[in-house]
């Protein structure tokens, strides 16, 4: 999976984990900031769970909060936590 495909995957998972609370347009309008669209704790839990189930990477929930602020920072955390951009 290249970095662009990985980012798209993370974006899809983030929207699904929002369970209807956030749309692709809203995220794009917020410059893909999860914090700015009011992403809930429950959504974060779902996202971390989904990433482990579907990407196979375990993210540390206690990682500094800035890693969880945007789609790009989450994608970077996934790469740093075990999946290479070309994996």
């Amino acid at each position, binding site marked *: 999976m290249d970095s662009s495909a990985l980012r798209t995957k993370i974006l899809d998972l983030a929207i699904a984990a929002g369970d209807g609370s956030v749309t692709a347009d809203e995220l794009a309008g917020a410059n893909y900031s999860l914090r700015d669209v009011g992403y809930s704790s429950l959504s*974060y839990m779902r996202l971390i*769970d989904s990433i*482990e189930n579907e990407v196979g990477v*375990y993210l*540390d929930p*206690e990682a500094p909060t800035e890693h969880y602020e945007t789609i790009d920072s989450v994608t970077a955390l996934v790469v740093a936590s075990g999946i290479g951009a070309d994996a």
Partner: protein
Amino acid sequence: MTTVEERTITLESARAGTGPATWGQRAIWGVVTRLGDDAPRYNLRLDLPLNPPRPAARVLADLTELLRMHDSLHTRLLPDGADGLEQVVDGAGELPMAVRTCQVEQAPAVGAALMEELAGRSFDHAREWPFRVGLVECENQVHRLVLAASHTAMDLWGEGRMLRDLELISAGETAEALLKARPALQPLEAAAHQTSALGRRKDAGARRYWCERLAAGPRRIFRNPAAPELAETEPGRLFPNALLRSPALAVAAERVATELGVSDAAVLLGAASHQLARMSGSSDVLFQVVVSNRFQPAAAESVSTMAQEAVFLLTDADKDFEEAVRRTRSVSFSAFRHAGYDKWALDREVARLVERGEAADHSCWWNDTRDPSDGPFDTVEHPSAPPRELLDQTELTWPTEFLPRANVSIAVDALTAPGALELAMTADPAVISREGMERFLRGVEELVVAKATARGEG
């Protein structure tokens, strides 16, 4: 005069299958089996007035549809060797239905007695479905529906989902349509995931996390217990139960949550941790936190018992309240991620740690029972007054006392009430006095109100 009759609900062509029990089923089955005659206290009870009353045939049809929707209601559990437990989902069978006929004015009392009759005895999980049904009929209409369930069939979250689905079915929905719109994870599906390679890895990871935290946590939380001699001299001592009902806390918790960018659940657990650390003499605190384990949408729709305990260790919890709340958020994430595991295997590992004197005190419990979709101000007007001015509406009562509970120093539940937030606390009098319990509850309230006031100028 009350007449007694028995009818049956017949289930045909429902989903069926056999597989290993889920982690949740194993955990609860282990507990209720050990309890023996005391097991009925774990049964869930619902005595529902029907307004308007309904014909028995309609109620029976609705319940049949409910059984078709949720496999856990027609599942038996059978021991399989020393460490195994098998779930058998029956695709067909009959569920006895106790019917009492009486005058309308007698219906509440007859319903209460029927509730006791159905829920007051243990379930034979190997031979019967974990669900009992009773009807109170008056003038050929059902006035009360009485349901008793084994905790192996559902937890409190699941009970809420079952009630919602029963209401939808009563309004004309079908199990098929409801499941198509909102798929619900069934216990056999959950067990398949848990026994997959990924599930086994999660189980091992969760148990490792538990043991690491237990090894790192404080060996003793209450450094100066209130009356330690009671542990020896009064093994049958009753545990007081206090209930703090606070509109101020409901308003303040949501305000602090917004200001700090965390959930109000983190605010409450952070406040409880900070207060416990300040009162107990242990800077590090550890709670066993009950987790619903329903993070994924299909799990959130499940009735089956899935809740398990997470281990929550907050270091330096007494230092700064705001910092404690912020760290509670991230530590909770980790703890909640590790709340799904094989309880029997974990119990063995914890017992070894305890035996070696390497386990932290894990006798403090936290259970935030609130449903995020059910807020305190959904049905009553949100107060316009700032939290500080609502403090005089706080009520502290002592509703009951409980029989001694093993490995419990304090157990605190957070509950939603109309216009208020409630904290219910049960505690061992050998560890903390009634005065100490009140100081704890009012201390949690004051911490959150003070923070909301400081930030909101209110």
